[in-house]
């Protein structure tokens, strides 16, 4: 029965995605909300007719995630449609905090069922063994892309790139910054800059600026001393180092800096929906690849419900809807069937973009992240 309902949810998605190809993000979200509400009304009236009020009393599935626009997109693309079809409510807790997950696990009081782990938290999740094995009689493998199943007990989620944007007002012509070497070239491209306050990504960017090619084979293991030497060069020209994703958006909208490192979804959101006069440089983007994944947590309160939700979140249609809302790319390659060319070009997993990006080696980072974070913090404050 659940399977039929999932199919019905996916059908609704397909219709909405087909009808809204040309709408902007807001229009699309509104239309999606309407469709979901309409079908909810439909299914709840069916319930009443059938005399089945039991669905509403289902135990909720709890998830933990980032707030704001992220939560809005997660709920519209994944949770609300799934709830409307299965009757299982999803409880969304923000903000995302991997620490909390680990603390609850250690206290043997896991209260979260499902999470979408961000960047390095995916390998950490597996390292600490916080996740539960998946039941592939519930989760339909055939609906997924092979890359989504790389970990065995996780479902590939979204793709994200950390990349560079430049101020189009300042460099309107063809002679604009095109690489990290240009970002470092303060004579040819003068102006204030901003980088992320994090060793991961910033060190790779520095090494690429120093001539290391965007190739994981040649990049890892990182030449730490060389990276810090290169970072020394740019430090006086960095107006501010950001730590949260909303900061670079603010910089772009206020034109606070002319060159900025930023997450691709945030960049597209500022450019498309908030009129920031910037342009994305995909060359040498720092690409997460299919690292990020959905997990079911061990000893969680609602493993059955969580498992069913995991059958839904990896599928092409909700992933396409999420990409539409927030510009983070799908790991399910079938999702591109529902995404038009204009949007596809703004996603990290789009082949032309992925080709020129550097795939981050999180396995290397897993062993070096702690030590380098301290080193980086020490460097940045001195």
């Amino acid at each position, binding site marked *: 029965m659940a399977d039929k309902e999932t199919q019905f949810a996916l059908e609704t998605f397909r219709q909405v995605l087909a009808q809204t190809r040309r709408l902007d993000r807001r229009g699309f979200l509104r239309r999606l909300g309407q469709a979901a509400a309409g079908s909810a009304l439909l299914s709840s009236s069916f319930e009443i007719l059938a005399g089945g009020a039991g669905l509403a009393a289902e135990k909720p599935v709890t998830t933990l995630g980032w707030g704001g626009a992220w939560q809005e997109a997660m709920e519209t693309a994944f949770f609300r449609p799934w709830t409307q079809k299965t009757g299982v409510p999803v409880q969304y807790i923000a903000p995302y905090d991997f*620490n909390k997950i680990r603390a609850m696990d250690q206290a043997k009081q896991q209260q979260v069922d499902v999470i979408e782990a961000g960047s390095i938290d995916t390998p950490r999740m597996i390292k600490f063994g916080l996740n539960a094995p998946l039941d592939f009689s519930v989760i339909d493998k055939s609906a997924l892309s092979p890359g989504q199943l790389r970990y065995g007990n996780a479902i590939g989620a979204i793709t994200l790139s950390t990349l560079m944007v430049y101020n189009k007002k300042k460099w309107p012509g063809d002679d604009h910054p095109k690489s990290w070497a240009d970002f470092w070239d303060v004579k040819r491209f003068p102006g*204030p800059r901003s980088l992320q306050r994090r060793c991961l990504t910033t060190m790779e960017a520095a090494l690429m600026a120093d001539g290391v090619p965007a190739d994981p084979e040649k990049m890892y293991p990182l030449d730490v001393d060389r990276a810090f030497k290169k970072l020394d060069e740019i430090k006086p020209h960095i107006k*501010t180092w950001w730590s949260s994703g909303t900061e670079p958006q603010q910089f772009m909208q*206020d034109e606070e800096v002319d060159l900025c490192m930023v997450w691709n979804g945030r960049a597209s959101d500022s450019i498309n929906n908030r009129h920031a006069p910037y342009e994305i440089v995909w060359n040498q983007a720092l690409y997460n690849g299919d690292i990020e994944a959905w997990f079911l947590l061990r000893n969680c309160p609602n493993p059955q419900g969580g498992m069913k939700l995991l059958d839904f979140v990896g599928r092409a249609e909700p992933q396409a809807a999420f990409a539409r809302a927030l510009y983070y790319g799908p790991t399910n390659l079938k999702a591109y069937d529902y995404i038009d060319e204009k949007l596809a070009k703004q996603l990290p997993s789009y082949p032309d973009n992925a080709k020129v990006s550097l795939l981050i080696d999180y396995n290397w980072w897993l062993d070096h992240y*702690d030590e380098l*974070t301290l080193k980086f*913090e*020490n460097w940045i*404050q*001195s």
Partner: protein
Amino acid sequence: MTVSTLPAYPARSARLKRISAEYPHALGLLLLAPMLSWIAVFFIFPTAWMIWQSFSERGLQPYATILTSAIYLKVLLTTLKICVITTVGCLILGYPVAYVLTTARPSTRAVLLILVVLPYWLDFIVRSYSWMILLGRHGLINQLVTGLGISSTSLPLLYNLFSVSIGMIQILLPLTILTLFSTMVRIDRRLVDAATIHGASPWRAFRTVFLPLSLPGVYAACLLLFVSALGFYVTPALLGGPEQTMISQTIMVIASDLLDWPLASAAGVLLLVVTTSLLVLYSRFFRLDRMLGGMAR
């Protein structure tokens, strides 16, 4: 200490009278019980747990890490520096306002008080972001400065000590004004009048009579401001550069990015130790009990 100073209330019945005679502190304890249990559960227990956590896994090693690495001491010093600047800035800006509040007519005072308290209801993050809009490269102030030709390039107003201090001062100013006001309003104005009648200039009357009488309020405000400023996180993160990193930001990185709880706990314990020692020193100099006891004695 507080318990013994509570006045003995007249007991209604003979039984109560007997109980209060046998246990003179019973009423005080009873009144304090809800707060004491609150503090025990939500402050003493977590603090004890934090202290235990800092030693349990790796012994003294987290403390050694902190004390031997230059970065933590630097962050701690930065934190103390920003706290002192904020406290002094708040006092300089807040004292005159509090003074005016005490002299204003009741209707004017009500309006002024609303103006003082209003920003306090706004979220920290909202206020910090508003400063970004004001102080930014194309912000209001820089547009004015470049527009009027005062400077040809925009001034670096953001992401430095200046922006962090101004942001924190704005957030803590209502607290300063209210604390100072509550002391000043209880000062007997006839003492100032007496001084002027005896030939003191208004300035001299203020300096020799009003100012000394308002000092307990100033000391109390200093303490409140300093302790509140120590825990700031959002404002330095949004308005500051790396040089303005405060200790709570560092603890946050250790705890939630590096997942190193023993180290984060040790950093927290050290902060607690430093703060407590400062408070003890402060109370030695400024008679903490007296200023918190108010004007009754």
